[in-house]
Structure formats: structure tokens, C-alpha cells
């Protein structure tokens, strides 16, 4: 029995490029850059200063408040500077730059396993917080915050997200194949926080090996089940997964915990297992470097702070005869287009896709007027009517956009844009409309004061 959600699209997967590539451990040679903001919330505060010697796994920046996360060094060496550097997304941000001594001397060896039976729930959350773990699925929300809902007893499902619906990316697939028992242990640790919850591991049906490995690892576990999902984007989105598992749809103003669900990426669960049982802080994660323009598409266990450009060189660089026209941090659905590869890999990043052809450029050439075909309405996982939303947004009728069409419920998954036969830039229109509405609300709020 395969589960799924309403709507969605099935973009070309391209996962075959790196599907069978085993994890490579890559030790970077160049300088390492650690942005202070690698998570949602307040930026971390540096606890080292220029000239300090640091070791692998040493805390270099501390969380500023509850909704924030510590940052650990992934290399050993000397702090070169704390300055503004270019980061993902094109902007400049405060970063700690470490001159890598290429020794990778660890601060501890993280091989001694704690007796998990002795750990209290508070211990588990504390260790997750101490390790600086954030959601590794892409959002980067601090995990310890997620693990502390108002009412832990009301949580019915802890969903392990192994859907990996993003085209091209395969590192979660590899992680589940190779580290299934550790992921299940991570899930068990999280389940201890929620006594009434059931653990559901969700994997799309295009990863049979991962499903098999996880089923073996989860067999005999009372509270854990593996569920196969139909391969469809955005299956790995929190809301789509909750809909597939529980049948509940909830407005954008509510959090998963409000409907009794906690969703954790399998990579995050693996990090939780390492942090809680071995005290290992988060300084490396799984990562896919792929795309038609890459010589050797690979899956990595990559150190945070490594430059994208350097990792690409480790894959043999750009394939001869091909030109990389677009670099995406992540996959084509949610990824951010990069202007330069000389930016560091952050905690929540899980891929680099280098395209030899730009589908957006081709789409722009094929763009026609809206046909009102209704395909966008069919694929919208939220149940919105993107075509009417676009009409309202372009006409400047933000009242109708927000009130009648529920435009602010859009989760910006981009399914409508992918499906549109007229190649209209729907999601871009919605982003703009949303920004305008928020701007207007802010102005009105200020006016009232």
C-alpha cells in the first residue's frame, strides 16, 4: 500500500546519475568558511577570535537565544578572520574563516557509545541542542526547538522523512541504504520524547533498496513502521508527508506539532543518533554533487564550510564538452541558483546540481498566454487555484488574492510552475504578491500605532 497526498507533479528524476555512487569522505584542502547564520533564527555569536587554534568538532560560535544553533569547526587550524564573505544566495554575511591545516585533528574521538537507557528526555534534547543540529532537509530549523512542542503527549506521529522527492539528489537514499540502523536508533531516541507517538519512516517507491534496508533495520521495533510513498513532488514537504500519513491538512498558520506530528529528515535523525549516543557535534553531513555537467556525479559525507567549487573539483570538475549554465544549491525544485561556486557549504545544504541546459531559459522561449487549462489547480498540493491567483495578482487585486483565493496559504513548492504548459512564471508572481501583502500589512500596522 503506497501512501500519497493530493496533487503534485513528477518532474524527471535524473537520480540515475548518482544513485549508485557510494559515499566518499572528502577532506578539503582550502580555507574553510563558516557563516554565523546556517539556520532559521538569530545568527550565532562567535566564541573564537582571530588567531585562535581550533580543532575538528570545536565550538566556534554559540547559539544566541533558544531559536538559534551552535556552530562547530569541521577542520583544524587557525582562525584567519571573522569577516563578511559571500554566501549562498548571493549576499554578504558575517563568517568565521579558518585556515585549514589539513591535519583534521579531532577534539574528541566520538567512538564511545553512551548507555542510552540512562538518558532522560531532557538529556536527549540537551545533547541535540549542544550538537548544533538543524533540520538537514533544507530548511535548517533548529532541531531542539522542534523537539520541544507545548504538549509532547499530544504528538501522535514522528515522521522520518526519507522521501527525497527532489530530482537529482540521492544522498538520503545512500544514507538509508548504508546507515539504516543508525537512522532507526535516531528515530527511537526521538520517540522516547513522545510517549504516545508512532514512528513512521516515509520513503518514495523509487528507492527500493533504501526501503528494504530500512525495513530490515526497523523489523521487530514495536513503534516503528516503514511506509512506501508514491514518487511525486513535493512528497518530502512536511505538509505533504503529514497529509499522506495522517490525512490531515492544516492551514499555513499552524505548525506540524499542532496536528500531532513531528517531521524529521533521515539525515537529521542520523545526526541526532551521533550527537546523543556519541556526543558528536554536527560538522558534516551527506551531500550529493550531480548534474549533466559534472564529470563524476558523487555522494559525499562533506564537511561544513567546504567550498562548493573545491568539492566540484573533487568530482573531476565540469564534464569535457559540456558547459555548466546553471548551478543549483540543492535540486531543481527547491534549489537556489548560484552566481558563484566560491561559497561555503552550510549545514542545511544537501546538494549541488550543475545543469548543462537551462530549462528555465527554454521555458521562457516557449511561454504563451495562460490557456486557463487548470493544470495548476490539479497539481496544487494545498488545493489552491494558482491560475486565478495569478490573474488576481497581476490585476493588483490583492484583496481577492488573499481573502477569496487564500493566496497566502501557498507553500511555494513550485508544482504549478512546473506543470504549466504555457510556461508562466506562477511562483515568482506569488512570491511577489506575498511580499506586497506583507509589506502592506506592515505599513498598515505602523500607521495604526
Amino acid at each position, binding site marked *: *500500500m*503506497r501512501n500519497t497526498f493530493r496533487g503534485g507533479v513528477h*518532474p524527471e528524476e535524473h537520480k540515475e546519475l548518482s544513485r549508485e555512487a557510494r559515499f566518499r569522505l572528502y577532506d578539503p584542502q582550502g580555507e574553510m568558511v563558516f557563516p554565523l547564520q546556517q539556520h532559521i533564527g538569530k545568527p550565532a555569536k562567535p566564541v573564537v577570535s582571530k588567531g585562535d587554534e581550533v580543532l575538528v568538532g570545536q565550538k566556534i560560535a554559540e547559539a544566541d537565544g533558544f531559536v538559534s544553533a551552535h556552530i562547530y569547526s569541521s577542520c583544524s587550524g587557525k582562525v584567519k578572520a571573522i569577516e563578511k564573505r559571500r554566501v549562498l544566495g548571493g549576499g554578504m554575511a558575517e563568517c568565521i574563516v579558518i585556515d585549514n591545516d589539513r591535519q583534521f585533528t579531532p577534539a574528541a574521538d566520538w567512538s564511545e557509545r553512551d548507555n542510552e537507557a540512562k538518558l532522560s528526555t531532557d538529556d536527549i534534547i540537551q545533547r541535540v541542542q549542544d550538537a548544533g543540529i538543524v533540520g538537514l532537509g533544507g530548511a535548517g530549523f533548529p532541531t531542539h526547538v522542534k523537539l520541544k512542542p507545548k504538549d509532547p503527549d499530544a504528538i501522535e506521529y514522528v515522521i522520518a522523512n526519507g522521501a527525497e522527492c527532489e530530482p537529482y539528489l540521492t544522498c538520503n537514499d545512500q544514507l538509508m541504504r548504508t546507515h539504516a540502523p543508525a537512522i532507526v536508533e535516531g528515530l527511537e531516541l526521538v520517540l522516547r520524547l513522545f510517549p504516545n507517538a508512532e514512528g513512521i519512516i516515509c520513503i518514495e517507491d523509487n528507492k527500493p533498496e533504501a526501503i528494504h534496508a530500512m525495513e530490515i533495520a526497523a523489523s521487530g521495533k514495536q513503534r516503528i513502521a516503514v511506509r512506501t510513498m508514491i514518487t511525486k513532488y513535493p512528497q518530502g514537504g512536511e505538509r505533504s508527508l503529514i497529509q499522506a500519513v495522517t490525512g490531515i*491538512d492544516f492551514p499555513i498558520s499552524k505548525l506540524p506539532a499542532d496536528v500531532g506530528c513531528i517531521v524529521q529528515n533521515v539525515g537529521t535523525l542520523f545526526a541526532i543518533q551521533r550527537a546523543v549516543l556519541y556526543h558528536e557535534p554536527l560538522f558534516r553531513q551527506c551531500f550529493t554533487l550531480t548534474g549533466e555537467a559534472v564529470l563524476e556525479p558523487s555522494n559525499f559525507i562533506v564537511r561544513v564550510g567546504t567550498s562548493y*567549487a573545491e568539492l566540484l573539483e573533487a568530482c573531476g570538475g565540469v564534464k569535457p564538452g559540456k558547459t555548466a549554465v546553471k548551478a543549483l544549491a540543492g535540486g531543481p*525544485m527547491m534549489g537556489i*541558483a548560484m552566481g558563484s561556486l566560491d561559497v561555503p557549504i552550510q549545514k542545511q545544504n544537501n546538494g549541488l546540481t550543475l545543469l548543462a541546459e537551462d530549462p528555465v531559459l527554454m521555458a521562457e522561449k516557449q511561454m504563451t498566454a495562460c*490557456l486557463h487549462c487548470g493544470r495548476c489547480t490539479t497539481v496544487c498540493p494545498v488545493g489552491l487555484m494558482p491560475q486565478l491567483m495569478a490573474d488576481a495578482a497581476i490585476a493588483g487585486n490583492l484583496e481577492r488574492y488573499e481573502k477569496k483565493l487564500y493566496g497566502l496559504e501557498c507553500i511555494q513548492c513550485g508544482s504549478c510552475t512546473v506543470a504549466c504548459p504555457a510556461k508562466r512564471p506562477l*511562483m515568482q508572481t506569488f512570491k511577489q504578491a506575498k511580499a506586497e501583502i506583507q509589506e502592506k500589512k506592515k505599513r498598515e500596522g505602523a500607521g495604526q500605532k
Partner: protein
Amino acid sequence: MNGVLNLSSSPHTRDRWTTPYIMRMVVLSLLPATVVGILVHGWQAFGIIALAIVSAVASEWVFDKVCHKPSTIWDGSAVVTGLLLGLSLGPKTPLYLPVIGSVFAIVVCKGCFGGLGKNFINPALAARCFLLISFANAMTIKPSIDAVASATPMGALKAFEQVDITKMFLGTADGVIGSSILALLIGGLLLWSLDIIHGQICFSVLIGFTLLIGLFGGEGFNPRFLLAHLCGGGVVMGAFFMATDYVTSPVSRLGQFIYGCLIGVLGGIFRLWGNTADSFSYAIIIGNVCTPLIDTYIVQKPLAYRKIGRTRRVKREPFRIPKPVIALTIIAVIAGLALSGVFFVTKDTIEEQAMLEAAAAYTSVIPGAKSLKIAEETADLLGDDGIDQGSAHINACYVGKDGDGKVLGYALSITAKGFGGNIVMALGLTPEGEVVDIAFTEISETAGLGMKATEPAFKDQFAGKSGTLTLVKGAASADNEISAISGASVTSNAVTGAVNAGLEFFRTVLKGGN
């Protein structure tokens, strides 16, 4: 790495569906109807379709040029408009009409309102209605197949006459070029199975129409009656190809359902109580103009707002038969029904033909008879199966009368056992009981021997005879003797026996009755 990297907002991929792809699939799905139309109606139909398409594309090109807009002819929508218009014209339409229609569709209905996606009514349909109103006489569908038939099936339906459903279904009846229901259904179901058209629209149109005709048509849900209405007047074309036009139909599922029902019901009302055969075109146009209203007020709420709480069940993979399978099944069933329909129709025709031949035979044995009826005095005795008489079997007895009702004679249908199977013959008798003539309606004796029974040399011997006849070899010497066919005694015996049985029947039943 060198070169400039492109920047764009996510998502960075697109699906393979494009506007030209959709238009290509629509054209493809209209091809069966086009081919059938051309094959049935001839080259003028081809000329009409070709002219409609060419002038649609040309006027779009010119319009774009005049308006200094980038050319949009490659999106394929003009081809679809032209093809739809061509298919909805009669096969004998003067060739200037498709040109005028296409120009009107593209320039007035589409271009002037802003081009693709901006028109408020279906251009092809609007052009058809424009032609119907402005060139009413030239647009009247003239028979191209049955020169005798005076009315098209739609005209006949309106006049409550019987129509030939099978012909309408296959597209061989008089009507517009694209009137082959079978071909249109194949195309329409193809589009539906590819998810290009919305099932909510086409099926609610058909259901709404059927319900209205069934409830108020005066014939109840008589399948023959409903089928006749469904197969005619562009209902199928309208439901699958006109009403489903994206631009002029609502987006929400509920809106599409309302729109479809509206068209179906209006089409039915116009069909039953209106006085035009083109009711469906007008119904769709009214549906089109209601679309903006429906889209404004009927919008769907996001899933999260549709039902509060946890009432929705876990959405599991539903067991769903793939649409192409459903479409193929429907087509197979329909084709099967159509074939059996053809069989039944031709079977009737064969029997009718046989009946006619038999009737001719019976009339021929009573010269001058104007009417031929079952002789009432024998009806009870013979019933449906007839009786054995001597060596033969009397099937039926007819009485032939002239225009004034005077009895001219009797015709008997007699079966006798011949050499090669049953011989069925008509025996004509005068009112006095003398043989006038014999004729065979079924005989399969040996050629050159038994078959000589049908030749005058043998069969004319019976004329004027009465009483009991005897068969002799060689020449007949007495008045009641019949010369046998040499080498075919079985046949000779059978025929003579049959005539004797008929004479005996006359003496005992007809004469006795008198």
C-alpha cells in the same frame, strides 16, 4: 569553471507539456472525425476544412503583423480553431463561408479581445453561429448522401420522424462534416484519457442533456430516442471539443460541473422547445459567457479549510483503473455495439429484400392484382406455421384483389421437398380454382436438371390446369398430365406434388369455405 551562470527563481525545471503539445493532441484527436468526414462527404469537405484552417492561420499571422505583435501562429491554436470550424460546417457549404468564418473567429473573437487565452467565447463556435445567422440559407445542410432524403437527421428529429441511429453513429448520415459520433468519441476519449480535457465538463454536459431529454422529451428514457438525440446536432462534438475549450470554461471542479450541466440542460431545452436544429451551439455560447461569473464566485478553498478537524481519512493510493484502459474499453464496447447494429440493420434489410422478392413472386402469379392480403378464410387454419397437404406443405394463402376490391385470384405459398433442399413456390389460382402460373421464391436444385423446373417449358404446363395432375415421362397426352423433366424426377415430383397440394387445398378449404 568559466562562463556565466544563469540565475533564476526556483523551480528550475519544467514539465514537457507545452501549449503546442496540447494543440497537437487536440488536432490529433480530431483526425478520426476529419478523415471519416472527408471519406463520407467527398472532396468538397476536404476543401472546406483546408480553407478553414489555412484562413485561420493566415488571419492570425496578418493580425499579429498589423498589431505589431510577435507571431503566435506556432502555438497551434489557430489550427485547432480552423479545424473545429471546418468540421462544424455542412459538406456542401459554399467555399467562401469557411474563409469568412475563420477570419471572424480569429480576428473578431480572439484577436480583438487580446489573443490566445483572452477570448470570452469559443472562436470556432462563435464563427459557426455568426455564419448560421448571417448566411442562414447557405448554411442549410444540403443532402450529399441520400439525394432522396429531404431532411437531415436533425431536421427529422425535430419533426419527430424516425432517424437512422446507426448511420448517424458512423457518420454516414447527412449532417456537418464532423458528425461521425464514433470518430468523435474516439478522439474525445483520447483527450480525456490524456488528461487534456476535464471529465467533469464533458460528462456533465452529456448527463445534463440526457436527463433533460429523458424527463421532458415525451418518450421517457427510451434508449433509441435518447441515442438519437445524443448522436445528433453536435452534442458529442460540443461536449468533448467545444465546451471543454480551456479559455471559456471554469477552473474549479465544482464550477466545471455547474458549467457542464448548464450547457447540457440548456441544449436540451433548446432542442425540445426551440425551433432550430443548432440548439447546442447556442447552449455552449451561453455557457461560455457565464464562465467569468462562475470563476469569480465558485472558487475552491484550500484543503485545510474544506473540512475542520480530523474527519478526512488517510489518503492511500486509490485503486484506479488507468484512464486509457477505460477509454479503450468504452471505444471497444461502442465499436462492438456499432458492428452489431450494422449486422442487425443489414439483417433486416436482407430479410426485407427476401420479403420483397416473395411479394413480387406472389403478385406475378395473380396478374393485375393491386393488393395482396392473407385470405381470411384460411388464416385460422394455416396460422403462422401452415399445414401439411399431401406431399407438400402449405405455408400461407393470399388473396389478390384489384383496385375495386374484386377478387382476382389466390396465391399460395407452398413448400415441397426437392432434390437439393426445400423448394418454396408461389401458386397462383383463379377464383375458380384454375392454375394461373407458378413462381419459385426459393429453389436450389441441380443446375441443368432440376433447375429446369423454373423454365417456361416445364412450369408453363401448369397454366389452366385443375383437378389432380399426374406426372408422366415423355410428352403429356391427357389434359391432367404433366411432362416430367428428364433426369430430374425428384424435382418434377416435388413441383407437381406441390401444385396438387395447392389445388387440393383450394378444393377443400377455399371452395369448401364458399
